[in-house]
């Protein structure tokens, strides 16, 4: 709890330290990706279903907001933020039938369906001119915030969303729902046999996950002020989310956040300072491959594993010292505790 409190306190007070605009801008994007990665984690990390189509819901959120506020002039500028829960609901409602259709099948077909969904959304965004403006793109109202504090409202909204998502993750981990998800990931048939409501649990996780992603998409659209189909619905957004979650550690609470901090700020910094090198995609892909092959569980679980191993060895040595001929005391390694458990 202490650590969580420190985290929240730091986040809330950061803007008041008189930070530069460019830094707040960076933080807004980092928070966006941290929230999205955390939400992807619910489906891809805990349930073990790698959705490759979350970017489709990002786009749905973006266009929903654009539609609602089409041609409007804002009074306070906070109206879009107040409507975010509605956007999230739209995303979740669309995600519900998608999950029902696709989660009856295995993980690889699920991935196929989600990727296809992504491209369907992109095609629709291009073709439905009257709704989305098609390839001409569509404008959102310019936020009437003063230039001095422009980023601050966005920052706080993103902090709220990140804390919400992390809170949700934390609650899930400690609840029956979390247990169900993990059991599904370990062995779905057995889970069904034991009485877990497999379909219901999976669909719920997916709907919540994409609902949150839609909300982030809406905030992004408002921040950019103008969106085009190929950017609002971009496969690279999904890949970024997945990579960040993998890097930090799937199925952990802090993993996705850590992954987002490292990758998003790293990527923005590197692009700005060293840009123009065509290696961008190659480096990205290589990082991904290295992580999957060498650190398949991500940073946090790997660190924890190493520490636990060292602990176990120490305990074994101590036991051997006391009882030279006896067996070493085996230590407990149940899979649940590697879910990033332990009080925060």
């Amino acid at each position: 709890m202490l650590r969580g409190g420190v985290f929240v306190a730091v986040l809330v007070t950061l803007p008041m330290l008189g930070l530069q605009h460019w830094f707040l801008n960076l933080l807004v994007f980092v928070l966006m990706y941290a929230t999205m990665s955390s939400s992807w984690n619910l489906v891809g990390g805990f349930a073990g279903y790698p959705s490759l189509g979350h970017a489709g819901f990002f786009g749905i959120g973006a266009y929903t907001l654009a539609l609602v506020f089409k041609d409007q002039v804002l009074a306070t500028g906070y109206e879009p933020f107040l409507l975010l829960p509605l956007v999230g609901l739209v995303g979740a409602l669309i995600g519900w039938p998608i999950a029902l259709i696709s989660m009856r099948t295995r993980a690889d077909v699920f991935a196929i369906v989600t990727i296809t969904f992504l491209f369907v959304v992109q095609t629709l965004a291009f073709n439905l001119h009257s709704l989305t403006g098609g390839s001409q793109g569509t404008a959102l109202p310019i936020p009437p915030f003063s230039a001095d504090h422009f980023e601050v409202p966005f920052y706080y909204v993103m902090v709220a969303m990140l804390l919400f998502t992390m809170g949700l993750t934390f609650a899930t981990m400690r609840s029956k729902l979390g247990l169900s998800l993990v059991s599904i990931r370990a062995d779905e048939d057995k889970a069904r046999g034991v009485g877990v409501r497999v379909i219901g649990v999976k669909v719920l996780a997916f709907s919540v996950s994409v609902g949150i992603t839609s909300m982030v998409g809406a905030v992004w659209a408002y921040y950019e002020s103008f969106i085009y189909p190929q950017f609002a619905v971009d496969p690279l957004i999904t890949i970024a989310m997945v990579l960040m979650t993998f890097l930090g550690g799937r199925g952990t609470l802090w993993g996705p956040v850590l992954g987002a901090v490292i990758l998003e700020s790293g990527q923005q910094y590197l692009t700005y300072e060293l840009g123009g090198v065509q290696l961008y995609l190659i480096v990205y892909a290589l990082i991904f491959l290295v992580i999957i092959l060498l650190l398949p569980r991500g940073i946090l679980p790997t660190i924890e594993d190493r520490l636990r191993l060292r602990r176990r060895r120490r305990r074994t040595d101590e036991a051997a010292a006391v009882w030279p001929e006896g067996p070493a005391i085996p230590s407990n390694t149940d899979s649940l505790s590697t879910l990033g458990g332990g009080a925060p």
Partner: protein
Amino acid sequence: MHALIQGVILGILTGGVYALMASGQTLIFGIMKVVNLAQGAMVIMAAYLAYQLFTTFGVDPFLAIPITTILMFGLGVGVELLFLRPLRREDKSELSLLVTFAVALLIEGALSLTWGTTYRSINAGYANSSWTVGSYQITLVRLWAFVLSLVALGLLFWLLNRTRFGRAVRATVQNPESARLLGVDAQWVSALGFGLGAATAAAAGSVYGLLYPFTPGSHYDLISRLLSIVVLGGLGSVGGAVIAGVIVSTSSAIVAATVSPAWSEMTFFVVLILVLLIRPRGLFGSVTRGAI
């Protein structure tokens, strides 16, 4: 009516090419239970190779196929050994998707580094000629592409059904445990199988380069279409992929001709959703544990 028939002709001719691309993808799935999201990227890579051979040495793209096939086969085996084999068994299903996607990005990055992002196409001299049959146009290039696809698919069938390697592959697809009991080296089959899938991409690449302009990012469009086709045909069934390729391609062409070109893309996706709703295992797929 005229437009409709012209659309059907076009669809069938292009269907051959898609069938060829999809056959490699479904074969890889059948052997290794891995959805190869890099299949599209491999086709594009082969297209670039054929392009380079054409512009530097004047080699006709069709004739370049033996060369590109060998190169891509090697690439496929390499990818399997380097990136897929190290994956642990229990993670393989989830992670192989992400690994192959990363490989696709890697290929895309390498291609843009080498050739830039300008669209390329292989402008063979016969690219613009066409036959007129009745009142219908048959572009020569498409016809040759279709013929080539048939030949390549024929070779693939021969390989699978008449050679020892092919028998090993089919055994592994049908029942991996029994195959292993009978002495089939699953690891060997996996590597070669992936290589074979990549080799089909090589043949398809030359053809693709002749028909369409391409850029490193073209693989996204391609992979989304291929996925619909393999699901329709049934994951793992090469014959299914062929038939599905022709069906989907023809439907798409008909929609383009009769309704509007804007919606022909959607045909692929609509087919996919329908298949998943009505008959998830596709036309010829086998029912395995956990559906599909």
